[in-house]
């Protein structure tokens, strides 16, 4: 265990090296490039332990991961923004084929026009592809989430995406507790999922099925995903024992008496957490998981604390409907006896959330006015 001053991208790459993979294949894109560079360095120095395959596109990267994972290999790729969009067809294929692929997505706005700031729309637009999605608020969470992603993916036979904000995390050098290879390998264990195909023994995978078969398979994937909370509890116990830290799927910091909470995902959660002492009777709910959506855990916090108002920071926008996390929350709270009011601040384009913006927003909030939807440029 060692405290290191590293960037979020370096934290992701080192975590992959610590886990030990058979194959890394990735195509560079800002702001993810440093992950590919670091993993290529590991490969060049003989420290990766597996192969690094250069590919001509993101689509090829994920196709290559598909093929390798089907043979039982542990694989990793990373991308962001347009790169993720370009992978879209293969992203569906990975989960349908039940391949435990781990991918980092560094959030970046999808054009037009070109933009490098960290809108979450790239990863959120892959919502319905059947991947697990973990969101990180700092470099430490990046390092730990990559390790957790391999455990989750391989236990559930579902691909897992680890997501964090471009620049605010990817390019921020900060102190990260980097666990030793030995401890990480103990936590993850060797890849132990059955190969679907043996090299040298030709076969046909995932041939034409009927709708009825698909329904059964989709149901199985849905049920597999519902196993995440239980598995996460086991992962937490192991992390606590080995590293002295763990993470809740839904991290709630609600001061006594507070009846409202800011809901934040990713880098903005840390700014809210920092600002909490200055916020009037307001708590924070940080969501670490988007798929599966932690509806039961959120309802429990709301019920237990008696919250009557949730203010969601959405660094994204589903045009025509509004903030995506706000939508998901409203859906998760539906049917509660007295569900809290869900409001949304939209920071589409990945614009910055400052402490002052938060203070202005909370001060201007009142039940008599229509605050259901606010935009970041109003402050």
């Amino acid at each position, binding site marked *: 265990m060692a405290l290191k001053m590293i960037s979020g991208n370096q934290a992701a790459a080192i975590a992959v090296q610590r886990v030990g993979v058979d194959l890394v294949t990735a195509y560079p894109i800002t702001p993810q490039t440093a992950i590919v560079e670091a993993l290529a360095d590991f490969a060049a120095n003989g420290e990766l332990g597996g192969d690094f395959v250069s590919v001509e596109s993101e689509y090829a990267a994920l196709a290559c991961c598909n093929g390798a994972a089907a043979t039982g290999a542990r694989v990793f790729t990373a991308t962001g923004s347009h790169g993720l969009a370009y992978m879209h067809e293969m992203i569906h294929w990975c989960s349908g084929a039940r391949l435990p692929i781990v991918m980092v997505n560094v959030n970046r706005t999808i054009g037009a026009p070109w933009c490098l700031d960290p809108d979450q729309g790239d990863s959120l637009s892959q919502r319905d592809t059947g991947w697990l999605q973990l969101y990180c608020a700092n470099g430490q969470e990046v390092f730990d989430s990559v390790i957790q992603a391999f455990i989750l993916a391989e236990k559930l036979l579902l691909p897992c995406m680890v997501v964090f904000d471009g*620049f605010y995390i990817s*390019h921020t*050098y900060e102190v990260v507790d980097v666990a030793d290879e030995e401890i990480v390998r103990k936590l993850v264990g060797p890849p132990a999922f059955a190969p679907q195909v043996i090299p040298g023994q030709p076969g046909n995978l995932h041939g034409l099925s009927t709708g009825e078969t698909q329904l059964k398979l989709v149901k199985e994937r849905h049920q597999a995903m519902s196993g995440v909370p239980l598995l996460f509890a086991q992962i937490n116990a192991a992390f606590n024992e080995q590293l002295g830290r763990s993470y809740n799927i839904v991290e709630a910091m609600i001061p006594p008496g507070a009846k409202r909470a800011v809901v934040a995902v990713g880098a903005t959660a840390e700014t809210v957490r920092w600002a909490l002492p200055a916020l009037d009777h307001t708590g924070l709910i940080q969501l670490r998981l988007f798929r599966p959506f932690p509806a039961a855990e959120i309802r429990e916090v709301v019920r237990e604390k008696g919250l009557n108002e949730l203010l969601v920071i959405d660094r994204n926008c589903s045009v025509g409907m509004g903030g995506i996390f706000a939508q998901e929350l409203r859906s998760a709270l539906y049917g509660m006896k007295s569900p809290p009011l869900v409001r949304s601040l939209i920071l589409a384009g990945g614009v910055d959330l400052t402490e002052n913006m938060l203070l202005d927003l909370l001060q201007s909030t009142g039940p008599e006015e229509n605050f259901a939807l606010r935009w970041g440029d109003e402050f």
Partner: protein
Amino acid sequence: MDRAITEFRLHGRGGQGIVVAAAIFAEAVFIDGHYARAFSLFGAERRGAPVTAFIRTGSERLMPRSRIYNPDCVVVFDATISGNTLYAGLKDEGKLLLNAGPGRQEMVPPDLFLNQRFQIFKINARDIAWKHQLAIGSFPMINTVMLGAMAKVSGLATIEALIKSIRQRVSASIDANIKAAIDGYENVEEVSCFVRGTS
């Protein structure tokens, strides 16, 4: 919890190593027992284009994860970038550290020195870099000189911690870079018109 945070903004040009400098400084602050983060704003950075980097330091690991709008200290590697915007948002009684000298990249707009809102410090980083033969072709590498000056002006990193950080993070001309940092530390001078309490 001690919530005191000190924020830096660094201005320079692509190729001057300001993003690397920010990380080296953050590491030095950490070696001295405080937390620090270094980050950069990305356009399509390339050699010669204006680049901005940031450092945030504090005594707790938790810090806001937002950009820096009102720095306590602005460090200018190349004053030819864009005059007045260099110190935009700099706090009253804050600190402005300039790479200043007779060279073309060190030409500081003269009226800047008359500013009474904040403290001003200068270092001739170009000459020190040349003295230690720190250059890529005809392009002097001034970042370790500026780091020495930053350590002195801010008081947030000791020269010992800075040297340790340079050893950890610099891969070429390590000794020359350390000497350059020490020269930066020892030769930075205050040139303020600023009088405390009158701004």
